[in-house]
């Protein structure tokens, strides 16, 4: 029992390490030009929950991050489909993932989480879907009317030299990339912390039930022994051989 818990911890740490490396490798990519929505959703047992995003221009990059925060063995089935029904990603029993797809087709892309493997455990999933903002496209939310295209160079520079603007741009871009990595790291730590918490709680529960079972067994054994000894001195003495 302890070995399984330890094994799970080690596996989680190892997976986290690999995932962190992968995340760092692709970090900074979405540093400037992405709109992201991060949500935490609880997928009930045998539920299939789907979230969609609309790609308006072909060949935009779609970023997808998910991590199972709690529930069972922290795994979930994931399926990503593009508008034409082509499966971009199909994973079974994955704990976390960080992927980038190119949305080749315009339309509705679906990200589905499926909890078929559980009979009653609900899984809490942290996920983030990023869509690269095209150069020159408007900000999507209608309440923030933004007519400025989101290009990479500032439109209004009042009395500043070209070089200083460019270095500011670079600094901001670098900061943005570092922040993205820091954010991802923190997500990994948060996931690890909830898994560790879950392991500790499950260990506590197992110890509790083990000690109860042990007490019951001891009392049962004692009662059995008392009963056995009593039968030696019972009325049916004649069945025992006389020495």
């Amino acid at each position, binding site marked *: 029992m302890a070995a399984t818990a330890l094994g799970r911890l080690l596996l989680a740490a190892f997976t986290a390490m690999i995932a962190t490396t992968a995340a760092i490798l692709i970090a900074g990519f979405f540093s*400037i030009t992405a*709109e992201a*929505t*991060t*949500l*935490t*959703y*609880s997928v009930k047992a045998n539920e299939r*929950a*789907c*979230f*969609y*995003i*609309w790609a*308006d221009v072909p060949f935009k990059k779609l970023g997808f991050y998910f991590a199972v925060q709690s529930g069972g063995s922290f795994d979930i089935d994931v399926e990503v489909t593009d508008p034409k029904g082509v499966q971009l990603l199909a994973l079974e029993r994955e704990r976390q993932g960080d992927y980038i797809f190119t949305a080749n087709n*315009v339309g509705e892309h679906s990200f589905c989480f499926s909890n078929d493997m559980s009979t009653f455990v609900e899984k*809490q999933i942290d996920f983030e*879907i990023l*869509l690269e903002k095209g150069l020159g496209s408007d900000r*999507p*939310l*209608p*309440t*923030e*009317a*933004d007519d*400025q295209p*989101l*290009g990479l160079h*500032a*439109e*209004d*520079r009042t009395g500043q030299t070209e070089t200083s*603007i460019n270095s*500011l*741009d670079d600094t*901001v871009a670098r*900061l*943005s990339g570092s*922040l993205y990595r*820091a*954010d991802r790291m*923190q997500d990994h*730590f*948060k996931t690890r*912390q909830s898994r560790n*918490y879950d392991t*500790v709680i499950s260990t506590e529960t197992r110890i509790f039930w083990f000690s109860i079972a042990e007490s019951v067994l001891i009392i049962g054994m004692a009662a059995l022994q008392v009963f056995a000894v009593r039968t030696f001195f019972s009325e049916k003495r004649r069945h025992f051989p006389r020495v």
Partner: protein
Amino acid sequence: MAINVTRWSFALLVLLSILPSVFGLYFYLEGAEQKCFTEELPSQTIVIGEYAAEEWNEDTKQFVKNKDSGIEVVVEEMPEGKRVFSQKLAASGKFKFTSSESGTHAICIFSTASGWFDNSKTRITLDLAIRDIGDDGDAPEGTLSELAMRVRDLNDRVDEIRREQAYLREHEKEF
């Protein structure tokens, strides 16, 4: 040439009719189904949700914005299930609430358009933003240069990271 133009404009029309009203993450609700999102919030944190709800119209076979329909947002504090915020809102707009205690909050959204037996499909586009209560609001559009806006965005992200860190620290203390 003329035929091509008609075909393209028709395709564009069809495409526009099925476009979600907002380009962001969206999901579908059947009838009175609700979808809940959990957020771990420290105390005194404002959550602003920007949403748009569209209903499936059988006659035109599209998702349309219906002025009469609306959504209901219910926020409960998780371990006890205490209701912190409940509001019925119009088909699109913003909702805002402040967390009084630190903990896990469940933000549940469901469509009020349909009754118990109605099975209409609703498409909800949602974007949640979490801010500290001390933050000043967004500056009016057009007063900031693009670079300043990006720096402000970086500031917001740093705040978010710090806030999450503070929450994790608190969680670990209890642990």
